[in-house]
C-alpha cells in the first residue's frame, strides 16, 4: 500500500477500505423504518413540502400510501410528477427543499424523512418493474432531444406518454447525464443511474443514440429540419477556468472529470489521488470532489472558497458531511497562483478576500498551501459554439427560455442546466424537461 506516498498515486487504501468508504450514504429504509417515518407525516393541506418541490410531487399523498401499505400506489403518485423520482430521492438537497418546508421541521426541528420515503416507494416499484404509464396512440410526430440527462429523459418520457416518437442524441457512451457521470458515488450506488434510464425508456417509443454530440456529429439545423420539435437538454459541457497563474501544471484537474472517472471506475484502487488535495469552489461539485478525494485516501483535503459559508451553493448538510469526513473547508480565499516544481503541482498560493458593500475584494494578504493536486470546481459553462449558426438567443451564457421552456427559435425548446432556468438541480431539470414536453405536445398537436 502507498497510503502516505507523496504526489499523486493510486492504491492508497485496502480493498476493504475502498468498499466501506463508498457505501450508500443514506441506506434504504426497511419496511418497519418506512412505516415509522411515514406515520410522522401530518397529511397537511396544500402541503408546504409539495410547494417546495420543483416537480410538485404530492408528498402527503405518497407518504399516506406508504403508511397504508400501498407502496406501488405511492410510487405512481411520485412518478406521475417526476419520472426520475428514484434519483431525486437520492440526490435532492431535501434539507433545502421539501424537508426544510416540512411543518415538523417548524414544530420539532425534525422533518419527515421525505427523501428516504420517496426512495422506499420508488425502489419498490422499480424492483417490481411496475410500469405505471402507457403510451397514447401514435401521433406520427417525431421529436429530437439533445442530451440523455435528467431534463432530456423527463422530456422524452412525457412525450412518449403523449404518443410521440422520441430520439435522444447523447454525446457520452452512457445515458443519464450527470446522474451517471456527475454525482458522488456514495449517493447512487449499484448502477442505479443506468437502471433508472432503462426504467424510464421502458415505456417505449424512446430511442437513445449514444456517442452523438451536437456540433460534432450533427447540427441544430439538422434536427430542426427533420423533426417536428427539438428539445435541448445537453447540460453544460465546459468548465470555468481558475484564472490563476500556472493553471496548466500537472496535477490541476477538473473536478467534474474526477467525479466522472470515479463513477465509471471498476476498481477504485487504480484511481490516482494526491496525498494533499486542494479543491477550489463552493458548490456540490466541490463537496463531492473533496469528500471522494478523502474517501480515496488523500491525507489532507482542503476546500478553498472565496466567500463565506452562507454563500456556498452546497447545503449546510453537505458542508457538515464534508467536515465529518475529514475535509477542511476554508472560506474567504481566492486562488492566485499554482506553485509547481518541474511542471508538477507542489502548492497553491491564495489571497484572502473580504466583502465590502456586497462586493468581493482582495485584501492583499496571502496564504500558501502545500498540495499535490488541485481540483477546479468553480462551475460549468455552456459550450455555445456547439449550437452553431442560427443558435437560439442566450441569457447570461445559457439558452434563454420562457416559462414553457421555449427558446427564441420556433420549434426548439430547452431545459435543465443549459437553459436560463437551470439551477444545477436534478429535480429542476426534470421539472423543466417534463413541462417542455407538455408545451411541445400542445404545439405539435395543435391542442
Amino acid at each position, binding site marked *: 500500500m502507498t497510503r502516505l506516498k507523496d504526489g499523486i498515486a493510486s492504491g492508497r487504501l485496502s480493498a476493504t477500505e475502498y468498499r466501506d468508504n463508498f457505501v450508500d450514504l443514506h441506506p434504504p429504509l426497511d419496511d418497519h423504518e418506512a412505516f415509522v417515518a411515514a406515520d410522522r407525516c*401530518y*397529511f*397537511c393541506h396544500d402541503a408546504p413540502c409539495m410547494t417546495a418541490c420543483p416537480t410538485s410531487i404530492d408528498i402527503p399523498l405518497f407518504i399516506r400510501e406508504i403508511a397504508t401499505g400501498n407502496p406501488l400506489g405511492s410510487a405512481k403518485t411520485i412518478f406521475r410528477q417526476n419520472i426520475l423520482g428514484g434519483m431525486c430521492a437520492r440526490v435532492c438537497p431535501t434539507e433545502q427543499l421539501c424537508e426544510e418546508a416540512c411543518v415538523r421541521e417548524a414544530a420539532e426541528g425534525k422533518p419527515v424523512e421525505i427523501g428516504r420515503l420517496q426512495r422506499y416507494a420508488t425502489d419498490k416499484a422499480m424492483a417490481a418493474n411496475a410500469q405505471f404509464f402507457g403510451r397514447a396512440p401514435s401521433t406520427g410526430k417525431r421529436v429530437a432531444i439533445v442530451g440523455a440527462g435528467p431534463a432530456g429523459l423527463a422530456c422524452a418520457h412525457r412525450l412518449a406518454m403523449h404518443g410521440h416518437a422520441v430520439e435522444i442524441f447523447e454525446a457520452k457512451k452512457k445515458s443519464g447525464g450527470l446522474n451517471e457521470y456527475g454525482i458522488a458515488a456514495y449517493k447512487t450506488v449499484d448502477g442505479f443511474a443506468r437502471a433508472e434510464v432503462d426504467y424510464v425508456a421502458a415505456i417505449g417509443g424512446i430511442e437513445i443514440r449514444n456517442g452523438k454530440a451536437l456540433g460534432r456529429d450533427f447540427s441544430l439545423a439538422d434536427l430542426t429540419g427533420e423533426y417536428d420539435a427539438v428539445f435541448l437538454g445537453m447540460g453544460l459541457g465546459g468548465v470555468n477556468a481558475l484564472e490563476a497563474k500556472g493553471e496548466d501544471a500537472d496535477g490541476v484537474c477538473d473536478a467534474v472529470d474526477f467525479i466522472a472517472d470515479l463513477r465509471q471506475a471498476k476498481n477504485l484502487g487504480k484511481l490516482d489521488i494526491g496525498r494533499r488535495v486542494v479543491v477550489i469552489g463552493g458548490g456540490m461539485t466541490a463537496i463531492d470532489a473533496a469528500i471522494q478525494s478523502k474517501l480515496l485516501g488523500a491525507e489532507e483535503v482542503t476546500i478553498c472558497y472565496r466567500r463565506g459559508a452562507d454563500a456556498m451553493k452546497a447545503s449546510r448538510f453537505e458542508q457538515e458531511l464534508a467536515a465529518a469526513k475529514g475535509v477542511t473547508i476554508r472560506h474567504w480565499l481566492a486562488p492566485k497562483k499554482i506553485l509547481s516544481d518541474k511542471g508538477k503541482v507542489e502548492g497553491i498560493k491564495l489571497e484572502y478576500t473580504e466583502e465590502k458593500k456586497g462586493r468581493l475584494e482582495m485584501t492583499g494578504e496571502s496564504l500558501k498551501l502545500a498540495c499535490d493536486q488541485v481540483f477546479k470546481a468553480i462551475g460549468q459553462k455552456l459550450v455555445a459554439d456547439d449550437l452553431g449558426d442560427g443558435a437560439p438567443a442566450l441569457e447570461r451564457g445559457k439558452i434563454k427560455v420562457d416559462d414553457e421552456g421555449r427558446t427564441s427559435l420556433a420549434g426548439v425548446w430547452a431545459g435543465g442546466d443549459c437553459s436560463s432556468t437551470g439551477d444545477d438541480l436534478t429535480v429542476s431539470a426534470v421539472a423543466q424537461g417534463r413541462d417542455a414536453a407538455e408545451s411541445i405536445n400542445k404545439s405539435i398537436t395543435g391542442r
Partner: protein
Amino acid sequence: MADLRSNFVGIKSPNPFWLASAPPTDKAYNVERAFKAGWGGVVWKTLGEEGPPVVNVNGPRYGAIWGADRRLLGLNNIELITDRDLYVNLREIKQVKKDWPDRAVVVSLMVPCEEESWKAILPLVEETGADGIELNFGCPHGMSERGMGAAVGQVPEYVEMVVRWCKANTRMPVITKLTPNITDIRKPARAAHAAGTDAVSLINTINSITSVNLDTFAPEPTIDGKGTHGGYCGPAVKPIALSMVSEIARDSECAGLPISAIGGITTWRDAAEFMAMGAGNVQVCTAVMTYGFKIVQEMISGLENWMDAKGHATLADFAGRAVPNVTDWQYLNLNYITKARIDQDKCIKCGRCYIACEDTSHQAITAMKDGQRHFEVQDNECVACNLCVDVCPVEGCITMERLEAGALDQRTGKKVSADYANWTTHPNNPMATEAAE
C-alpha cells in the same frame, strides 16, 4: 404528600390501582410481580366451577388496532376464563394473600346460573382469605354461548338473581361486573343494586371484530380460517366506559352504589378522570398487557403530584366531583358562546384546521393572508364546533375562547347574553316552557 390509600367497599389497598380480572392475574407468578411493581390490588382471573377446566384456542387469542407509530389503541381477545385447575388457583390465591396482606385480592367468579353452583364455590373462595368476589357477568365471547358471562349480564333479572344468591351465601363483599353490550347500562346496575351488591365494576369488554384478513377473508384473530367476535378494550374504549360510569353515577336509583371503573385506563390522568366521574377505584388491564406492570409507578407519582398541586389530600377529596357537571343536552347553556383562536406563534402551518373546516364544517378558517400561508378563524362563520382544535397536531395551538356577555357574536349579529338559557326555554322548541316570571 397526597394520601393514595384506598378503601373500596371495605377492601383496603395502598393505592386505587387494581389489575382487572384478565390474563395478567391468572396465576401467582404474575400477581406477585404486579405487587412487587406496586399495584394496589388484583382481581384474580375468573374461576369456573370444579371439574375439568375450560380450554382455550391454540391459535391467536388477540387482535388489535393501532394508531401512529403502531401505538396499540384497541385490543380484542377471545380468551376464556382461567384454564387452570380450580384448586391450583385457590391454593395460589391463599398463598398470595398471606404473603401480601396489605394488597387487595378479589376473586372473579363465573359458574352456571344455578344457585347450587354458586353455593359450592363461594366457601372455597372464602377459605383463601380473599378480600372479596367479583361476579363476571360481562365476558362477551365463548362463555356467553354457554349461558354465562354476558348472557347473564344482559338480563337484569338474572343479574339480580345471582347477586342475591351470592349475598345470601357469603360474608365477602360482592362486586358485580357489568357488560357494556347492552342498550341501557343502568338497568343491570339497578338490578344488582336492588339485590344488594356491594359495588358494580364496569365496563367489561365490548363485542368486536378488529379486522378482516384480506387474503383469507377471515376475521382477525383467525383460527384455522375462521374467527369470532371478541372482547374489545384498551384506550379506544375509554370514552364509552367513562360515559357508562357517569350514567350509573348520576342515576338516582343507583345512588350510593360504589363503582370500580374499568375501560382503557392507561395513565394516572385516566384514573383521576374516572374517579372524578364517580369511581371509587380503577382496574387496569390493556395498559399492562402493552407495557408491563411498571406503568403503575407513573400512575402513582402522577396522581400524587396532581393531587398535591390541586390540594387534594385524599382520594375522597376529588371523588365524584365531575358527576354533578354531567347533564342532559337540553340543559346546556345556549348563551355560552365561544370562538376558536389560533395562536400564530404555535401554529406550524399544516393547514389541517383549514381543510377540516372548509371541507367538512363551516368554512370559518382562511388559509391565506397577504399572499402568505396563514390560518385564521373568521368569527362570522365560526360556530365553535371545536373540530379545528381536535385535528390540530400541536396541543394548545388552537383554543376556544368565550365571548364576554355584551360582546357581539359576529355570526348571529346578536349580543351575547349574560343569562343562562337552554333548549327547554328556547323559542324554536315546540315543547318550550315559559320561563318563570
